[in-house]
């Protein structure tokens, strides 16, 4: 269990174990957190077993789709990471041979294949099995009445831990560190047989491979950070890839109208909490710009207790984890009011996906840092995609404009990369902010919410009091708070119709002696002339500018917090997913 716990960072929605107990195979699997499984576990006396945490890719999360899987005769059990590409044809074949399937997963074909190949040698049977498989895998298998674990690997991590009269197998060194620091890495195409006495590794031709074990000298946490100092920085740098994967999963759905096939709602309401709410605010601008549909916003914690109006809008709920208590309650309330509902979430099969009519997944991958970074970016992307879908669906966007908007979105991963390429300028700029007690973020139009999010990020991780304002509102109050010790971060994107107004607002601020950190497009000298320092983003259509600007502000907060020696990945008083109301 300790090992599974250490692998939590890889993300999971269900977990299970298979133990050889008194020679008999016992299986236990549960959807949900590891603790659910832990509580359900009896005291095992067996010494041989396998376990798995699952992050759903094929088949929704449920008890039956959780690993391990057992063979028809109940004598074999396996766990698997990866994707079996030819599982449909394998499943048809196996079913015609009489095998009974109990789940929706691709993995289950493996155990039935193994059963059909098994004739006394578990590893041999596994080696035969993987020859039938196309795709990627790390597989571990156990057999009733045996102390052996057999395993195979292709393009999914697998590592053996060597102990004294005990040996271990895991997908990541982290899981093993409490037991041993002597490890043996397994290569693509190899299979192995593991018993308490020893390990034998074989190559594709079945020839035994001799390899010296390596000693691990690093801590569990370093293992996961891959050279980066903090998860947050690592996850900021994963932004371009998160965007690429989100588009890969969604572009077709949007273009072919598979998301929101009917556009029959009079208006749209966006409901969320925290950072997701700022994504929703950007969504409002995008929805009105691309689709001309009246769009309102509500905090989930307010919406659920609000009186509710007569007409039934499409309610879009945004939650990274899919478990945010207030957003879940809001989803139920929306349905009760007879609204169509759509959820935007990063977690396949999370609770919210069962509470709504439709789901659009962001594919940012697991995020460990408490401050949302790459997941927020992909939420922005989801907002644009939905707005484009509604706009094309209701005829506001021509085919040509729809294609051109999607093509701009395709460029967004490059935009982010381009900001990251100059991250050291942002690191330098963080000196302007790190000593401040108060700090203001101002922007207009679609970058007003971007600045709200920028302020939230700064307070979350650096504990500096930060507020985001619509720049036009300054003169209605906040201007009174400005002085030379209060830095102001201002965004003005050349080409935006509020650009000139923004420059005027920046002049107002500078006139109160506040040091201004400008965020603008490369080469914008009109802006840089007004600001003490600049952070640049690549040239971008104003409507999509929140994407690169957000990344720049995330990096800024990171470096400010670092200069202030804050606990960046685990800020005080905060949790990653807020499951309380």
């Amino acid at each position, binding site marked *: 269990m300790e090992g599974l716990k250490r692998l939590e960072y890889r993300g999971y929605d269900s977990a299970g174990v298979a133990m050889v107990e008194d020679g008999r195979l016992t299986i236990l699997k549960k959807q949900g957190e590891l603790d659910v499984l832990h509580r359900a576990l009896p005291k095992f006396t067996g010494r041989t077993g396998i376990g798995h945490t699952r992050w759903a890719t094929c088949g929704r999360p449920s008890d039956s789709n959780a690993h391990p899987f057992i063979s028809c005769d109940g004598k074999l059990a396996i766990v698997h990471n990866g994707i079996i590409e030819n599982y449909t044809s394998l499943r048809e074949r196996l079913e015609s041979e009489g095998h009974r399937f109990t789940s929706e997963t691709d993995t289950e074909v493996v155990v039935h294949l193994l059963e059909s190949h098994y004739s006394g040698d578990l590893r041999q049977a596994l080696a035969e099995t993987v020859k039938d498989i196309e795709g990627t895998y790390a597989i571990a298998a156990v057999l009733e009445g045996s102390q052996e674990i057999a395993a195979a690997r292709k393009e999914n*991590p697998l590592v053996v831990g060597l102990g004294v009269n005990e040996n271990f197998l895991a997908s990541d060194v982290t899981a093993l560190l409490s037991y041993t620091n002597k490890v043996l*890495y397994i*290569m693509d195409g190899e299979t192995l047989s593991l018993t308490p006495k020893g390990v034998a590794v074989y190559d594709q031709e079945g020839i035994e491979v001799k390899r010296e074990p390596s000693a*691990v000298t*690093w801590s569990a946490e370093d293992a996961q950070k891959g050279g980066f100092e903090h998860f947050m920085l690592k996850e900021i740098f994963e932004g371009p890839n998160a965007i690429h994967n989100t588009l890969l999963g969604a572009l077709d759905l949007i273009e072919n109208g598979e998301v929101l096939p009917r556009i029959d709602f009079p208006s749209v309401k966006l409901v969320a909490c925290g950072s997701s709410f700022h994504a929703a605010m950007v969504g409002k601008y995008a929805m009105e710009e691309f689709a001309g549909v009246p769009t309102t916003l509500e905090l989930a914690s307010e919406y659920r207790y609000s009186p509710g109006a007569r007409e039934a809008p499409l309610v879009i709920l945004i939650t990274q984890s899919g478990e945010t208590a207030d957003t879940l309650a809001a989803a139920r309330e929306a349905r009760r009011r007879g609204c169509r509902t759509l959820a935007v979430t990063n977690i396949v099969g999370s609770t919210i996906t069962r509470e709504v009519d439709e789901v659009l997944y962001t594919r940012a991958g697991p995020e460990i840092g408490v401050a949302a970074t790459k997941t927020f970016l992909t939420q922005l992307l989801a907002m644009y995609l939905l707005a484009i879908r509604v706009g094309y669906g209701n005829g506001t966007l021509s085919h040509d404009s729809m294609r051109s908007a999607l093509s701009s979105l*395709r460029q967004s991963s490059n935009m982010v990369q381009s900001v990251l390429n100059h991250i050291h300028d942002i690191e330098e700029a963080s000196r302007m902010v790190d000593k401040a007690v108060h700090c203001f973020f101002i922007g207009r139009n679609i970058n007003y919410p971007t600045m709200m999010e920028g302020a939230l990020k700064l307070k979350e991780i650096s504990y500096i009091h930060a507020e985001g304002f619509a720049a036009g509102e300054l003169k209605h109050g906040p201007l009174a708070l400005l002085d030379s010790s209060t830095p102001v971060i201002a965004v003005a994107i050349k080409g935006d119709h509020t650009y000139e107004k923004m420059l005027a607002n920046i002049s107002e601020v500078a006139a109160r002696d506040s040091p201004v950190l400008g965020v603008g497009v490369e080469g914008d000298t009109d802006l840089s002339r007004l600001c003490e320092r600049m952070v640049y983003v690549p040239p971008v259509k104003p409507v999509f500018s929140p994407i690169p600007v957000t990344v720049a502000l995330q990096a800024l907060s990171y470096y400010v917090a670092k200069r202030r020696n804050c606990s960046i990945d685990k800020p005080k008083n905060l949790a990653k997913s807020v499951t309380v109301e």
Partner: protein
Amino acid sequence: MKAVILAAGEGTRLRPFTVSRPKVMIPIGNRPILEYVVRAVAANGITDIILVVGYMKERIMSFFGNGSRFGVRISYAIQEKQLGTAHAALAVRDQIKEDFIMVAGDNIIDAQVISDLLKHKGSMAMLVTDSEMPSKYGVVQIESGKVMDIIEKPDKKVGNIINTGIYRFSPGIFDHLEKGVMAGKSGITHVLHSCMPRLRIEAVRSTGRWMDAVYPWDLVRLNEYAFSLSGQQTSGAIESGVTMRGPVYVGAGSRIRAGCYIEGPVSIGEGCEIGPYVTIFPTTSIGNGVHIAPFTAINNSMIMNNVSIGSHAHISRAVIDDGCRIMTGFSAPSGPAQVRVEDDFFKVEKAGSMVGEFTQIGPKVVLSAGTIVGAKSRVGAGAKVSGSLEDRSIVV
């Protein structure tokens, strides 16, 4: 045994393709050069790898992570300032207690190369190979299997056996490197040269594949050789009426529209949209999220991520970096050319065009053979360009 891979340098002679990534991260056959090196090392059972990183290190770290994707454990040593390979190697001094191998991260190698080196049991060895262009490398003089001298980038012809930058060393090497660096020597070869022939280094002939790109036009040649794809693997959507011959790889979420003709070896990344009616000839690699409009022909080129190419374009032996937007009627032929890099002129027999990242090219632009357009440039409609343009150039 540990492997130290040097990956800290920029590779300035490959600009503009290194303005936002180190040379080791240039994608060849849609994989960074460094990935070939890591895989070659891993295939020989060496799973403890230290990457020395510096210039744009985050690009490397976010791609390789802790190495589990490649079945190895990767840790990082940072060379803050790029002061040469000898200085870079010293960054790992504390982590090395026994014999180790050191590999240059910026050459494409196969597993055989590392295996040749490992077969040698002594504690000091240098892997050497024949070269047609020895003047760009360290030329090695060998007597009865031992390296007698090494001359970095010789002016006159002194032989054609060169150093590949792949070594087997004992930890004792660090004292020599430190002394060398103190004496103002920047490269490992410079340090070795000053210790020759005292340091008894065995010369090991490589029988595997070792390939290098020094200048941008070399990339296309590297791309040709790096392709070792067998069979067709397509996870994208291929519409009916597409002809694909030879090894063609198409990544997830890519869409090849009707009427395309693709002759492999060709690798197309994820989330691309190609065609209808686009022809792609060998040996071409196309990155992720690339859009190619109808009636465009591409031959022997490298198109990187998120590039968009308009219709009726003709592109031959070109290298086009991330995020370029190219309008209709683009013409980029290949042919003999004189190309300037850092004030030197080179005669290149078959040169295509080389376009840096985020460059925008208007309709009906012609780039003559051997043209280099810097990153983030803008070329206006109908322009005819030749020679080398700096980054952020504007051509009207």
